[in-house]
């Protein structure tokens, strides 16, 4: 079902003219209200009046995640704080999160776009939506919640964790739609089997999964083990949260990005130039209706390509191919953004730790795992087990405190972590082979 027929099936020319009109409005606003954009535009010697076509967008400078960090917490807001009705945040490399603010209209649009997403996934009024995305600073829980209410479905605000209760409620309440990370979906299925419950026999029919990388193989596994259609959803807090783009249930191929609110571009991450149509590169998004924190040419670091061919579902909005990686070294572990440099800073703040370490990211029992391998040296070594165990616990705790991710520390012999001539291979992501 198409939620908003007027906008979701708008002819391409009408989308383009709407985008240009909204882009100009956004530029006029940010160039006055956001000091960073005043500086950026003046440094790039562009005046917003010079932006006369969508193609002119390429003349504007990029916005980076670092810009949000540098303007922590409210420096990028384009409206006074008394117009902000909600604040969310995501983890950042320095321990300071990236902060985003929403006006009442932003929240309203977000609910609309999430309702569109639910509808595209095949959900409708009358569904019981079991929302297992985390509620809190993370945008996942509340973002999906508001969209589910807008849709007119009955939403169960489960949030994450407490798996046994999730299973009981899913069964007793007759959940028909599940929203959670793909790995948690599989974890739920296995935990349910241990309780003697086969989710395939429950009324559940749709899973909407995102917030971490997953593959087609994993989709097949989820669909088989839960007996559902598993739909890929994309979003990031800087731009909106969940609901920026979603697959339609008809094709399950490519995620429609709502072009009446966002302008996607694909660039070469090395040169910053746009790539030829249909080629892979880094996704850059400009928000054209956001009030709280509008972003111009935000570099998402996600690698994808645009699918411009018309879709059988009838939606005219372009599709993003399933994300195939990142242009930086950011890892997403159990929904948390982790940069190896953050872990490095933790390790180096502990006296005596060698500058050689390796991160092994894997998936065990369908949950992401992070192992931090650290070489033992004469300074950290002791003949007493407890001293080494304390060292492990110390590292685990510092990483947990800074990043919110639980890791396992493995102490290894000196020189056992491969040295490389050029860029050290700090990360081995075994999830990519699964």
């Amino acid at each position, binding site marked *: 079902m198409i939620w908003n027929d007027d906008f979701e099936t708008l002819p391409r020319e009408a989308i383009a003219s709407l985008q240009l009109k909204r882009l100009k409005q956004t530029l006029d606003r940010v160039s006055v209200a956001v000091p960073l954009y005043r500086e950026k535009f003046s440094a790039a010697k562009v005046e917003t009046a010079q932006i006369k076509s969508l193609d002119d967008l390429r003349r504007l400078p990029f916005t980076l995640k670092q810009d949000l960090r540098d303007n922590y917490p409210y420096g990028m807001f384009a409206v006074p704080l008394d117009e902000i009705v909600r604040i969310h945040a995501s983890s950042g490399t320095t321990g300071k999160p990236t902060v985003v603010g929403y006006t009442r209209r932003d929240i309203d649009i977000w609910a609309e776009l999430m309702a569109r997403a639910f509808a595209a996934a095949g959900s409708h009024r009358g569904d019981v939506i079991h929302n297992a995305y985390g509620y809190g600073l993370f945008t996942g829980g509340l973002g999906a919640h508001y969209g589910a209410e807008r849709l007119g479905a009955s939403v169960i605000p489960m949030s994450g964790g407490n798996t046994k209760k999730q299973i009981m409620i899913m069964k007793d309440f007759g959940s028909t739609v599940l929203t959670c990370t793909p790995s948690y979906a599989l974890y739920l299925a296995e935990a349910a089997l241990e309780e003697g419950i086969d989710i395939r026999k429950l009324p559940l029919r749709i899973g909407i999964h995102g917030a971490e990388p997953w593959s087609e193989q994993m989709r097949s596994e989820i669909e088989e083990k839960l007996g559902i259609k598993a739909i890929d959803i994309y979003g990031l807090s800087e731009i909106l949260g969940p609901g920026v783009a979603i697959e339609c249930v008809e094709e399950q191929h490519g995620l429609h990005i709502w072009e009446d609110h966002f302008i996607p571009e694909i660039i070469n991450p090395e040169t910053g130039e746009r790539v030829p149509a249909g080629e892979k590169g880094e996704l850059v998004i400009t928000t054209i209706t956001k009030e709280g924190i509008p972003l111009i040419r935000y570099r998402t670091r996600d690698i994808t390509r645009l699918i411009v061919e018309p879709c059988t579902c009838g939606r005219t909005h372009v599709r993003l191919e399933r994300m195939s990686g990142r242009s930086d070294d950011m890892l997403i572990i159990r929904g948390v953004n982790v940069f190896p440099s953050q872990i490095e800073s933790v390790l180096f703040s502990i006296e005596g730790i060698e500058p050689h370490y390796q991160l092994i990211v894997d998936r065990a029992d369908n949950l992401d795992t992070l192992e931090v391998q650290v070489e033992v040296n004469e300074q950290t070594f002791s003949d007493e087990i407890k001293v080494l165990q304390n060292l492990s616990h110390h590292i685990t705790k510092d990483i947990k405190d800074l990043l919110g991710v639980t890791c396992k520390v493995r102490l290894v*012999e*000196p020189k056992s972590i491969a040295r490389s001539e050029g860029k050290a291979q700090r990360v081995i992501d075994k999830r990519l082979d699964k």
Partner: protein
Amino acid sequence: MKVEQISIFIENKSGRLAEVSRVLGDSGINIRALSLADTSDFGILRLIVDQTDKAKMVLKEHGFTVNKTEVVAVEVPDRPKGLCGILEILDANKINVEYMYAYVERSNSNAIIIFRFDQVEAAIKVLTEHDVVVLKGERIYTL
């Protein structure tokens, strides 16, 4: 009155213990006593050898992490409650034992136990005051 012990960090993977003993053997070093403490990921091999500094050097050359620590070798009457008596002395004086292990050879028909204490000096003082025989390093290396 103290004995030098070397400890070696060993990852929990096959062949590492063999490698340590091969390196020592190739250098003509004899192991006098040993204890292995292990966790699921790694182990700590503690050795008393006849040439401590040389052993430390050759192991380091082969890439091992090696520490030298001081332990105490104590004569323990080889009869029921022999060890108990010594532990009670330590306990009464609030000397904490980090770990301990048995030595292979005997001394005057007594067993020998190697103790690792936090407070080495205090432990030696307490033991000798209670007429417990604490053996010198040179004696242990060559016994």
